[in-house]
């Protein structure tokens, strides 16, 4: 109660705060906690510590640059999760079940895409002839060229990345359609929970089939990409592409031979630090995700199919009565959801630089967290939820050790389920 009042003081009227606390205690509690977190972040940024007796209550040390990096990391991972979550949210709203196999659709897409990317890179580097099996297994066999021999990165081998992305999407669409035909279509009228259990079966079969074929190793994928670093150099803000250039510039002045661009901004005195570092794979993920999301937005809002999908999500019987071919809408759902799942799997593996058969399963709960946070069934909710979950698991590192950051994201999801089970965009189905 006192906390709620504390955070509410700045909103002005004490009476309105009291009415919120009395009528919507949960909202007040969340507001209070949120206020505390923000307050603590501000204190930390200012390097200010609030003590009560011997116990440090709020504040501490947090460099502004670190917060910026955490935010960027959160947005990158969050967009990947949001992209992956769209399909989960769509199957939930149109087929009315929580698809536990969704994570393994993501893994399937990632493996299919990366197999193609490796084959193309192998062709480019002349490693193809002896190593077809090795390359097609994304390095699952014991001997063959390493990922640095292949040298896959966005700028160096754009064709491999693009082809991989497309194949990842297409292969996952095919997989989703086949599985729908074999598993889910015979159960169309079953309850959500029966479908959920069946999807667990699909998840197990799919994941371990991937393990059987590709092996259990966690393989490195790329040669590491280009990066762009924004940093302060003795009061000037500069763009460089190597950490070493920045250090040289800070100590001995701007180097002549390396990439170094000084930005025309105000002089910040003696400010010298690395502000933020952005890699090419991160940019690839962000740009591709945003493009795909915008494409989906156009599809849902501007086309007849999108209208039919939204109608089916709203009320399947009514949609059928009005002449919407619901079975075709279901297929379209799998096509869109599966395609985005496969693409997100490829991009997430690209961003991490590693791939193992557990990729999707480990991500699945985070994706569920994102989708539920945004309001399960809502496509836009899935995107927003993904970014929020990404930010949560990233910024939570300010307070808790990294081994618990995933647990923190799950805890946030559980709290959202308890406080607002419909999620942030609740009630809006695929709108």
């Amino acid at each position, binding site marked *: 109660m006192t906390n709620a009042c504390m955070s509410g003081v700045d909103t002005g009227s004490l009476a309105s705060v009291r009415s919120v606390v009395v009528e919507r205690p949960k909202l007040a509690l969340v507001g209070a906690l949120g206020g505390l977190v923000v307050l603590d972040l501000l204190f930390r940024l200012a390097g200010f510590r609030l003590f009560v007796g011997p*116990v440090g209550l709020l504040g501490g040390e947090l460099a502004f640059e670190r917060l910026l990096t955490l935010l960027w990391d959160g947005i990158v991972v969050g967009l990947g999760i949001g992209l992956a979550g769209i399909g989960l949210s769509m199957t939930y709203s149109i087929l009315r*079940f*929580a698809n536990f196999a969704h994570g393994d659709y993501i893994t399937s897409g990632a493996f299919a895409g990366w197999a193609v990317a490796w084959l193309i890179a192998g062709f480019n580097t002349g490693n193809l002839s002896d190593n077809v*099996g*090795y390359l*097609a*297994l994304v390095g*699952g*066999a*014991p001997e063959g060229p390493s990922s640095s021999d292949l040298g896959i990165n966005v700028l160096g081998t754009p064709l491999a990345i693009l082809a991989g992305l497309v194949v990842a999407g297409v292969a996952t669409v095919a997989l989703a359609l086949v599985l729908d035909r074999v*598993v889910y279509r*015979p*159960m169309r009228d*079953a309850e*959500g*929970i*029966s*479908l*959920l*259990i*069946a999807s*667990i*079966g*699909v*998840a*197990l*079969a*799919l*994941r*371990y*089939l991937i*393990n*059987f*074929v*590709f*092996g259990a190793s966690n393989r490195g994928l790329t040669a590491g990409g280009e990066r762009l670093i924004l940093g302060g150099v003795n009061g000037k803000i500069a763009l460089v592409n190597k950490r070493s250039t920045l250090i040289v510039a800070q100590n001995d002045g701007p180097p002549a031979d390396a990439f170094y661009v000084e930005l025309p901004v105000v002089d910040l005195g003696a400010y010298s630090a690395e502000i933020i570092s952005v890699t090419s794979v991160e940019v690839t993920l962000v740009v591709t995700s945003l493009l795909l999301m915008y494409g989906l937005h156009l599809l849902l809002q501007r086309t007849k199919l999108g209208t039919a999908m939204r109608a089916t999500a709203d009320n399947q019987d009514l949609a059928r009565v009005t002449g919407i071919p619901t079975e075709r809408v279901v297929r379209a759902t799998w096509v869109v959801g599966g395609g985005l799942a496969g693409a997100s799997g490829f991009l997430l593996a690209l961003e991490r630089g590693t791939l193992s058969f557990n990729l999707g399963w480990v991500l699945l*709960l985070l994706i*569920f*967290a994102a989708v*539920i946070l945004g309001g399960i069934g809502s496509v836009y909710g899935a995107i927003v939820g993904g970014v929020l979950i990404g930010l949560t698991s990233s910024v939570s590192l300010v307070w*808790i*050790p990294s*081994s*618990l950051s*995933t*647990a923190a994201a*799950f*805890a946030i*999801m*559980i709290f959202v*389920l*308890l406080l607002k*089970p419909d999620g942030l965009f609740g009630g809006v189905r695929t709108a």
Partner: protein
Amino acid sequence: MSAADTLADRFDRFEDTPRWLLDVGLIAATMGSIYLLFTIFTFVGPAGGTFGTVVANLQTITFWTALYAMMVLALNLHWGYTGLFNIGVAGFMAIGVYAFAVLTVPPTGSPPGLGLPLWVGIIGGMLAAALVGAVTALPALRLRADYLAIVTVALSEIIRLTLLSTKFESFTLFANLDYEVRGVEILPDVALGTGAGRGMNIPVNPSIPVKSIFYTNPSNPAAGERTAVGEVVLGAFVNAGVRETVVVSLAYTLLLIGVVALFYWLLVRVGNSPFGRVLKAIREDELVANSLGKDTRMFKIKVFMLGCALMGLGGILWEAQRGFTDPTSTTFRPIQTFYIFVALIIGGAGSNTGSVLGGALFASLLFQGPLFVSRILSHLLNLGDTPSSFAAAIGPVFALEVGPLLAYAAGNIEELRFVLLGVVLVYLMQNRPQGLLGHRKEVAASVPLIDRDGNRPRDAAAADGGEGDE
């Protein structure tokens, strides 16, 4: 529809035989068939068939059957009786085991514990699991089934990640609270820990009482001597060609069977009580139960706690008896929950006998069966070395040579076992979601339903035992 149907129908024809006797008969017949099958497996297997190997293999099968039957019964209370879709079983098991370990590990251990006796640990482990269950249940039970599923599986991941976190590898309780009353510290520092990835040694564990029947020094049999009982029993078995460790495991398996019987009895009692009738009403239609004046939330919380306590006990008997635990143990992986679910669905949710049968069929045919079959195949077909990758295995197939692929399959049978499990799960959900015995009717009245002529009106006043009749 299937063989199981006709079998169940045939049993239903024994109108006058008591139900429990039929159930015991059914379980005995199933176990008998399984034993026969695995005896045959042993004889055609690589080790060959002797009395010793047969006993060893049947002991393994019975051990896993008992463990799964135990867990499936506990889950049956949640999913079968009350319709609570809890897929965080592994998490509650882990809570039970770690609470047990922290309570019983001696203070000199690494990580240190409290050094309390075994029975305190067991009760504490069950209580801890029940409490965590209550914390989950209090708010989560308002949610729809699929949300409850996600919350429970997320909770089990939170538990696993927390146990794995080095943050709690070893810590000291009350370290900063040095309040003294007349020179005596009221909250003394207590050193505890989870050991994180290094795991925990559990010297005081449920296998010790069993070993103490045979050995004077149960925690290290080699250092002590055999007791009088041990001399007779072990001597007799070893003379018959059974290894000593197998005999000790056999004794522990007997203990497990006793616990299964206890769980079964408890569930039957719960199911037939007024409490159990409300649970079944909640499963069928919570709204109706609610409008009849039952506080369904309270019922759900209580049954969730009870089930979690049983899961905690199951976890202790399963994991702690190994004398060591760590968070990556197969017992706590999320997959374990799905194993138990598959076993329950095979047997039929809502049926206790079905739960035991499901545990037995799962443990023998799906869990251990593939391992036996793969060993036998590689022995009989002389498959040779396992290819190092799928590419090396699939290549010769194009030259019509399937040997390497078979060898690869036999070498990676554990992965294929999961695939089989998934396929079975999908098949069951499509074709027989009520499992083997889930379709049976259970009498829900507390008074004998026998009319004046002594006929039992079998279908009147009966509640569905599972998902409903076909």
